[in-house]
């Protein structure tokens, strides 16, 4: 394993120290591993909390700031944070009008956020709502399974709801909006190579040089199937087809297309993939109204990409375009 670190056990703590120094506009509670907007709590604004395992940078800490999240709890690499973190963060970002938990749908994250909400309810009178984000069409969804993973749609949810929170909307409205953006989003990912979890020290899965995994998750979970290495054009098809098969994205005010790099994919390739994906969307009558291309929800050093599509309406477009100032997404301010 070749990585820029000292002891794998100290990776998250040491990385947070560097991030803290690099971003004076954030406040970092190192003991609890919570990252805050420096001016949290913002009085009269609903506090937005997310978080999850580390290893997805710039998610989650890169999306804290005006127009997006108020705080994020960081877990160990690929391990959900613990209830105490979320309970503490909830307390500290409550500007008097409640806190919305934006939870990525993983068993661990959901349980830990649930327990945090229980703790918060027992200890404070902060109103807490939680919305679970689950957009990954690679995963079979049923009452009897853990359901779909939360992947790229979180960026759309956090950005759009973040802008709405900044406008002063109330907790119920924001939770409804979060659910609406989530329900309008679908994602699908693939890996050229596995990531290597530092504590393990070797790749999570072995992938021969001439094979790729389709339908992987962002924690190095293997995908739904393994296929021969293919040209970008065919890979784009393998990602776009299941997304479009799952939901109608035609018409209306167009879609947000988010082509995400898994961590070790050059932008040169990501832009090429975006070109292939956009051409397939053209053919299907789906209109990209907004685009985001880059490594935003990564899986350590995995090579590969995912595509997330969100059906937009007028309001969502305005909220997407609204000013945001985070380390990972910034415009208008």
């Amino acid at each position: 394993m070749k990585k820029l670190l000292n002891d794998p056990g100290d990776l998250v703590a040491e990385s947070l120290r560097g991030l803290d120094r690099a971003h004076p506009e954030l406040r970092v509670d190192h003991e609890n591993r919570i990252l805050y907007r420096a001016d949290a709590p913002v009085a009269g604004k609903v506090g937005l909390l997310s978080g999850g395992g580390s290893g997805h940078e710039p998610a989650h800490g890169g999306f804290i700031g005006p127009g997006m999240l108020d705080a994020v709890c960081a877990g160990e690499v690929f391990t959900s944070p613990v209830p105490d973190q979320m309970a503490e963060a909830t307390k500290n970002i409550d500007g008097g009008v409640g806190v919305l938990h934006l939870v990525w749908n993983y068993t661990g994250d959901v349980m830990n956020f649930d327990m945090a909400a229980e703790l918060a309810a027992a200890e404070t009178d902060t109103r807490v709502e939680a919305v679970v984000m689950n957009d990954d069409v690679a995963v079979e969804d049923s009452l009897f399974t853990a359901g779909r993973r939360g992947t790229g749609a979180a960026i759309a949810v956090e950005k759009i709801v973040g802008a709405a929170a900044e406008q002063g909307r109330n907790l119920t409205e924001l939770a409804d909006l979060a659910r609406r953006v989530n329900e309008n989003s679908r994602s699908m990912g693939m890996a050229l190579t596995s990531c290597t979890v530092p504590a393990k020290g070797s790749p999570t899965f072995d992938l021969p040089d001439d094979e790729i995994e389709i339908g992987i998750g962002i924690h190095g979970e293997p995908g739904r199937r393994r296929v021969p290495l293919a040209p970008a054009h065919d890979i784009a098809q393998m990602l776009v087809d299941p997304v479009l098969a799952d939901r109608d994205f035609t018409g209306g005010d167009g879609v947000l297309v988010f082509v995400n790099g898994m961590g070790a994919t050059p932008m040169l390739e990501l832009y090429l993939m975006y070109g292939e994906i956009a051409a397939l969307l053209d053919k299907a009558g789906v209109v990209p109204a907004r685009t985001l291309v880059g490594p935003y929800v990564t899986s350590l050093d995995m090579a590969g990409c995912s595509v997330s599509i969100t059906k937009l309406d007028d309001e969502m477009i305005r909220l997407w375009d609204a000013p945001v100032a985070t380390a990972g997404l910034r415009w208008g301010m």
Partner: protein
Amino acid sequence: MAGVDVETLQRWLRGFAASVAEQRDALTALDAAIGDADHGANMHRGMTAVTEAVTATPPADPTALLKQTATVLIRSVGGASGPLYGTLFLRMASATGGETVLEPATFAKALRAGLEGVISRGKAELGDKTMVDALAPALDALDASLAEGGSLATALHAASEAADAGRDATTPMIARKGRASYLGDRSAGHQDPGATSAALLVAAAAAAVSGDG
């Protein structure tokens, strides 16, 4: 030995911590195949923290010890296993009501309450390829052996055998809960990591009560 006192419980937890430390890489390898390659690290982080806490402030009675264990696990593990194992011990603590020595039946009831906590927290059913598939048959075997008049040591040995069998039975299953469920059919053919650590937990209990833990 008539019942389970705080020393026995400490032996159990230390024994579990030791086998987790020993099996850490194996647990992680199982999780790499159908999950995210951290179950060994998670359980090791948690049980190291439990051992340290128990050493630093030794709890007075079984209830306090179980509660402390639950709190430390919930605070230090994260992921799916943290809340689940945490809930297991939390419910056990609630079921022991401050007694200093737990009767075998009380210990069994506490474990059963713990399992129910795991199920209500995680919504897994038998056959979903989770820790429940090791724990549920283990507690059934425990109850059956005690009902037949077996000693707690005998009953826990039966439970441990049943846990091992339950763990092995997860291999052909298709996961319907947790991260392995994302793989669909591809989850079949791999032993569940959580069922594997759960079998270690039951084995450690048997060893602790027999005095060889």
